[in-house]
């Protein structure tokens, strides 16, 4: 029997609103991708019937739109939480403006992506590379909202979608907007694959309980890491 005795402590990393955001987001993205795919290439499984007897495609589109609104407001909420949440959820984690963040990005590439060196990454929340990728996905979220509501504005008189009506002429017409919206969907799908894999990977290698941390909010962190974290100089965000 192999037993390790590493001094660890539990750290409350993901507050409840962050976890709620994460799972609503995951649900919305899954729904949006499935319904989006159907809208782009509907299944013609019904034949020999009349239009007034059916409404399944209208329902698919309705689900897509409802999920889109949920996704949008959830996204807005997460941006707000980036200003009021704990240190791990703050906005400055996501934008690498500090030298030490870039240093950690290089470290993570060497340790976790290329696996050429074996060194502990100290981050308690997201590591700097993960944060940067999330920042890029936030930009994709934004573009997806702009193009989606832009297309939706043509069939709505509501206040919110009308705010996005300018995007259609800006991009030169609905054809281009739809194409961009469809391409960006693939960004979501590829992100989801890599994201789930990397959660497994980090849990497997680092054994800090990252998978369950998005359910319970707590992570197991080595004591020396916590110590270094607390002694970090002010010029670098504590992540």
């Amino acid at each position, binding site marked *: 029997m192999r037993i390790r005795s590493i001094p660890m402590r539990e750290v409350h990393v993901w507050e409840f609103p962050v976890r709620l955001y994460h799972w609503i987001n995951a649900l919305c993205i899954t729904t949006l991708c499935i319904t989006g795919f159907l809208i782009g*290439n509907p299944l013609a499984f019904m034949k020999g019937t009349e239009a007034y007897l059916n409404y399944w495609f209208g329902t698919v589109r309705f689900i897509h739109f409802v999920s889109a609104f949920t996704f949008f407001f959830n996204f807005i909420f997460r941006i707000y939480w980036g200003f009021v949440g704990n240190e791990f959820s703050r906005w400055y984690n996501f934008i690498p403006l500090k030298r030490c963040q870039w240093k950690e990005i290089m470290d993570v590439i060497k340790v976790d992506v290329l696996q050429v060196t074996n060194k502990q990454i100290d981050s308690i929340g997201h590591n700097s590379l993960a944060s940067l990728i999330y920042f890029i996905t936030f930009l994709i979220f934004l573009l997806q909202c702009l193009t989606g509501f832009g297309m939706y504005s043509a069939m709505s008189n509501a206040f919110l979608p009308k705010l996005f009506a300018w995007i259609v002429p800006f991009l030169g*017409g609905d054809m281009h907007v739809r194409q961009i919206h469809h391409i960006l969907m693939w960004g979501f799908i590829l992100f989801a694959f*890599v994201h789930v894999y990397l959660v497994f990977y980090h849990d497997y290698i680092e054994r800090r309980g990252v998978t369950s941390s998005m359910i319970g909010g707590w992570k197991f962190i080595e004591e020396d890491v916590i110590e270094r974290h607390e002694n970090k100089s002010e010029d670098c965000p504590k992540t």
Partner: protein
Amino acid sequence: MENKQPSFYEEVRGDGISRKDFLKFCATMAAFLGLESSGIGQIVKALETKPRLPVIWFHFQECTCCSESFIRASHPIVANIVLDKISLDYQETLMAASGFQAEEAYKSVMAKHPGEYIVMVEGSIPIENEAYCCIGGRSALQILEEAVKNAKAVVAWGNCASAGCVQAASPNPTGAQPVHKVISGKPVINVQGCPPIADVMAGVVVHLLTFDRIPQLDELGRPKAFYSRRVHDTCYRRANFDAGLFVESFDDEGAKRGYCLYKMGCKGPVTYNSCGIIKWNDGISYPIQSGHPCIGCSEAGFWDNGPFYQHLPSIAGFGIETTADKIGLGLGVATAVGIAGHAIVTNIRKHREITNAPEPSSESETPKVL
């Protein structure tokens, strides 16, 4: 009295059109323009009293299908209003004059009616090399710039003049540009379509004549009265779309039952036009009613968003007929391969970590993999 320009009403009465037909035309136009019923009276009054609109009509890089659309309008007044009854002093396709006389005709309009005449343009303007389109030794750009200087407004007929159409499609060898990209300082009305519907063209002219100002335009410069709704939203097959009933080939049962043409590449959901309401050839039919998907001819860049019979457009730079889905799937496979490779390396690393871990006290063999 000799020089007084006859009004539109006097002209059509002279052609033997009854007052009843004239009023019917006015009522139709008011409906197309989305006016309230008092608007009919305004149109009647304007057409009865106002002198004809001085117009210079240019043909640049185009196929004349806009003019053709107009000539084919079956309602006589609709055709008349542009071809005879506005003061069409210069129209390359239809005027009798040629050469020096033709040049004189349009110069005299510019001299006689500064600030009043309307410039109507069919076709795009080459910018890369202006020599691609020259009339009377001058380039399209030079002619247009001179004519627009003292014009009241500019009407861009069709997709060529509004968005460049086929000449501006990739690779755009002549550097074709629509009117609104090459002139500034004048209102430009983009009457989109390849060609635009004749009744829409007449509606724009009637509006200019009646209200003495340009119609309300959308963000892309198109008259809102005709281009504010998608072909999809006004399609009589829309119920089939919502029901999920689709045509999958031109000879299947769905096609016979008149199901939605979405999967046949119909661009109705991304195209703003009034084909579904006004229709073509005196309201007889329009492409979708005839069983053919909309190709999106009133949208900018519709040639480059093909193929016509495919819902998702091809992506330029990835070869012909490569859609976002194919590229996405390729990237997905590449990602899966990357993940698999990474996972293998990870397991080797993990295995080493376990076997190299110090074994406290216990001397047992065969380390268990976690």
